[in-house]
């Protein structure tokens, strides 16, 4: 089939580009969706938590980076940097929840949202203050020369993004569906007071949710850093897009976030190549998708329509 007169090898190329972008969105979207599922609140600072973790990973990596020690060493410290980024983001996420959101759990809905916006501004500017506004590049820990598959070029990095994204998402799905803690998490998201009555430590579950969501965002952050760059506001646009992905899939729904990320990644990639939307207006695609989906199916594509209980 010759879709929109694009040669099939190019089509495959765009498909892979779109999936790579989508996998990153999905990873970030999971954090929004998990937090929303439990607290019914948009963690506006999620993108900045991602950014902070990425910087932690970046500095760790370059602290130990030594090209003379060979490829195995480099890959080893890269994996360690990934773990450090995850831990840093997780801790930051949990601390932010305790300091800026927890006191506002009973407040009107506007309050935690404004507080979260405040936190995100503080983090982005602290990063600019300490790390500078110039963007930094992560060196690939491996040879990243592109391979030729079916006439389209694919980089090992893209393959890694897809693989890591898939592993993380599968792991999360298993955790939430199969383990006791995962079950407690789902129970808390369905009915917090009842979950508390059943002996579930709701505060612990909330912290855990922030930790997991933030760690996944850090993974996405490091992957972004490899493909693109590290800079203080890197999380803002990525976070917004991922939030849109979460809404597209149905916010509060874990599978929805994964699906929404992929859909958005593909839409953005193909929007540029097929519809000929200028690169400068690429971000407009995502926001238009958001407004459209909110209009047509505000509960997202995977969610049943649930109205507020009267």
């Amino acid at each position: 089939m010759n879709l929109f007169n694009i040669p099939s090898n190019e089509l495959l190329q765009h498909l892979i580009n779109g999936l790579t972008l989508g996998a990153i969105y999905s990873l970030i979207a999971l954090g929004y969706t998990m937090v929303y599922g439990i607290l019914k609140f948009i963690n506006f600072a999620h993108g900045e938590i991602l950014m902070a973790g990425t910087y932690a990973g970046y500095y760790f990596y370059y602290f130990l980076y030594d090209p003379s020690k060979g490829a195995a060493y480099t890959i080893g410290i890269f994996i360690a940097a990934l773990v450090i980024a995850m831990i840093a983001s997780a801790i930051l996420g949990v601390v932010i929840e305790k300091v800026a959101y927890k006191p506002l759990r009973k407040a009107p809905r506007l309050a935690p949202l404004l507080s979260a916006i405040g936190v995100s501004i503080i983090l982005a500017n602290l990063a600019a203050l300490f790390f500078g506004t110039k963007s930094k590049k992560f060196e690939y820990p491996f040879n990243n020369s592109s391979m030729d598959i079916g006439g389209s070029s694919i980089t090992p990095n893209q393959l890694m993004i897809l693989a890591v994204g898939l592993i993380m998402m599968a792991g999360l799905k298993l955790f939430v569906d199969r383990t006791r803690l995962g079950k407690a998490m789902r129970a808390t998201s369905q009915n917090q007071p009842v979950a508390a009555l059943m002996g579930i430590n709701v505060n612990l579950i909330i912290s855990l949710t922030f930790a997991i969501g933030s760690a996944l965002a850090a993974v996405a952050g490091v992957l972004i850093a490899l493909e693109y760059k590290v800079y203080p506001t890197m999380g803002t646009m990525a976070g917004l897009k991922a939030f849109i992905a979460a809404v597209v899939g149905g916010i509060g729904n874990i599978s929805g976030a994964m699906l929404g990320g992929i859909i958005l990644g593909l839409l953005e990639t193909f929007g540029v190549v097929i519809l000929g939307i200028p690169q400068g207006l690429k971000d407009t695609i995502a926001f238009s998708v958001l407004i459209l989906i909110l209009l047509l199916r505000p509960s997202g594509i995977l969610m049943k329509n649930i109205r507020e209980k009267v």
Partner: protein
Amino acid sequence: MLNFILLIFIYIGIYAIAAMGLNLIVGYTGLLSLCQAGFLAIGAYTTAVLMTTFHMGFWESMIISGFIASLFGILIGIPTLRLKGDYLAIATLGFGEIVRNVILNWDSVTKGPMGINGIPGPSIFGTTLSSMDKPAWIVIIWIFVAATYYFIRRIIRSRVGRALEAIREDEIAASSMGINTAKYKIGAFTTGAFLAGIAGSLFAAFNQSVAPLTFDFMMSIMILCMAVLGGLGNSFATIVGAVIIVLASELPRLMGISHIIPPQLNQILFGLILVLMMIYRPQGIIGRIKLNYAKIVKEEISDLEK
């Protein structure tokens, strides 16, 4: 120095108009909007284009700018006002970004990243004002501040204000009292956009130039901070909020230490204001003033008896 202080009060006035408009949306109606800078941009660019390309006068450009901004308010309001709080916030944020993106890329009209320069000043009593005529500007802008204050006061003390308060308290109960909540919400949103459009227009005419990067998300946040800091649901408090925020962000320059204070500190300060205010004093410095509509109506109808 005096010049600089005058300049600060011109900016305070412009922001106060936009912030009072936002306060109508956020404080009185309870809708979180994060695109006030987008409406400012629409107002500023409309004035810039009308005055440079179409050689229109300032005053008519300003009125048109206000209406164009409110037109966009309706456009964005109709689909999004069916949404609950946080969704609405994100959708408005998205709208603000779209506005900025379009302005940046629509070269033929907006001159893209370059912005539009050489906007003539408004003519008043036969003379044309430039940015240099600061005392005159102060008078003009603060007349608009006063007019905005009075306009919002009229809305709030009327039956419309009563309905807005009910919608903010409990939208479902309000709709089952026969109030067309969507219409009132769009009304508030559009009025807020109109005021931002006017503020944007004044901004463009005073600076005699506009640039797309001015109207970013941080500007929306700064305006929001003004409304939150003074106290949501209180126009006077919003003006106080505007004074504090603009003074705080210009303080380093005012004290001549701007070269040692990095610009990020400013924004960190806005962030801290939001977080700390929400946790320790969500009602703002001055706080909301609860009107007693029974008393207001009793006064209003007392002259009917005569």
